[in-house]
């Protein structure tokens, strides 16, 4: 057993866990944040993507002990005070999801991209999400959604009415 402490979306979570516990299981079963999905469970699909100290990573392919002490960001941390994060608004506005299974991972990969590139080209977006699989959309609207979020974060899009968000 190992003592693991993680800051998930700004909240400290501490637990005595088995060394073999994967980060995704810590997030889902210890912190009870089930927005982070498990898809392929073999490093291919990216449904489990979270940010580890700001870097997007596949949480099914890290042990929780490995990242002990890290800041983790998951999809639950995006919305603030009832306001959707621009990336969430982008997926809503541009129909960036159908079944929604890949969406949390897509959004976290998108957020990480926008952190270092505020105005990504289509090629930039496609590169950034090349480790995230979507079996529904064909990616076109996901790319648009992430670019929408970029535009929103650059202040190029009007504020949406609150009732539309709710």
């Amino acid at each position, binding site marked *: 057993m190992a003592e693991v402490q993680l800051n998930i979306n700004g909240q400290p979570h501490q637990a005595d866990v088995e060394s*073999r516990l994967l980060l995704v299981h810590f997030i889902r079963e210890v912190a009870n944040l089930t927005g982070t999905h498990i898809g392929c*469970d*073999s490093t291919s699909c990216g449904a489990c993507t979270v940010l*580890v100290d700001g870097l*997007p*990573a596949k949480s099914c*392919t890290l042990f929780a*002990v490995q990242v002990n002490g890290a800041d983790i960001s998951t999809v639950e941390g995006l919305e603030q005070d009832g306001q959707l994060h621009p990336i969430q608004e982008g997926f809503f506005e541009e129909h960036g999801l159908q079944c929604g299974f890949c969406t949390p991972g897509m959004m976290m990969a998108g957020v990480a991209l926008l952190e270092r590139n505020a105005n990504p080209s289509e090629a930039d977006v496609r590169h*950034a999400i090349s480790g995230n699989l979507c079996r529904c959309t064909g990616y076109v609207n996901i790319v648009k959604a992430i670019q929408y979020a970029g535009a929103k974060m650059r202040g190029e899009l009007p504020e949406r009415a609150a009732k539309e968000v709710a």
Partner: protein
Amino acid sequence: MIPSAFEYAAPQSLAEAISFLQGHAGQAKVLAGGQSLIPLMKFRLASPEYLVDIARVPGLAHLEERAGHLAIGSMVREAVLEASPLIRARYPALLETSLVVADPLVRNFATVGGNVAHADPANDHPATMLALRAHAVVEGPGGRRTIAIDDFLVDTFETALAPDEVLVELQVPQPAAHSGSAYVKLERKVGDYAIAGVAVQVTLEGDVCHEAGLGLTNVGSKAIRPLEAERFLVGKRLDEDVLRQAADLAATAAEPVSDLRGPAEYKRAMVRTLTVRALRKAAQRAKEA
């Protein structure tokens, strides 16, 4: 999928890591980024009793030129290599290799050292290290030793590392004047292993090839150096005819097997095509250098 239980150690120094490995000879495995080892453990193709995580060992994440070579500390992440201005300016084959390792998310944790020490013939860096004539610096209880990459890569998942040794750094000779390198990989999709991959470095004197290094990915039980092709290139002008003949020799050196990525003969044909493409790119870069 849940791996077998193991005991985890996070040493704070190299000496501590080596001493732990020595105390658990043969039962402990070094964990760097874990992006190859953890999937293997989840499939239970590997079930080490102890994992020695070297991520918190200081002094293993350096990436710098010194004393005639590029030193890549064993904890240098692929994403760091990829973003390095030094790598982008002077080591095109290393850059092109990093860019096709798995996907950008995996590369945030995957290490160059791990890619080589894991010794999967499908990994991309071993072939590039062959082409660039790299050395591996390893440290154990008896001190440090430097091993030529050809001797370091022993077989599938097998290196010259003793059970109580840690890979400390990879040393890549700084490219001589008028050198060019390239890595060309054929993959079905992002994140897949290579159907085949070819790494090349050539050094020109005038328009004649003075030195040539080649490495082949995923067409044998380990990365392959096509020695005949290298020898053939030296002393020749790199025209299309010479490139094709060298590519024939590289294809002959390949030992592909038929699997879900294609029949052996197709892979051999791809080695031929990729060798021509990689040589063309490297020769062009050498002329511009």
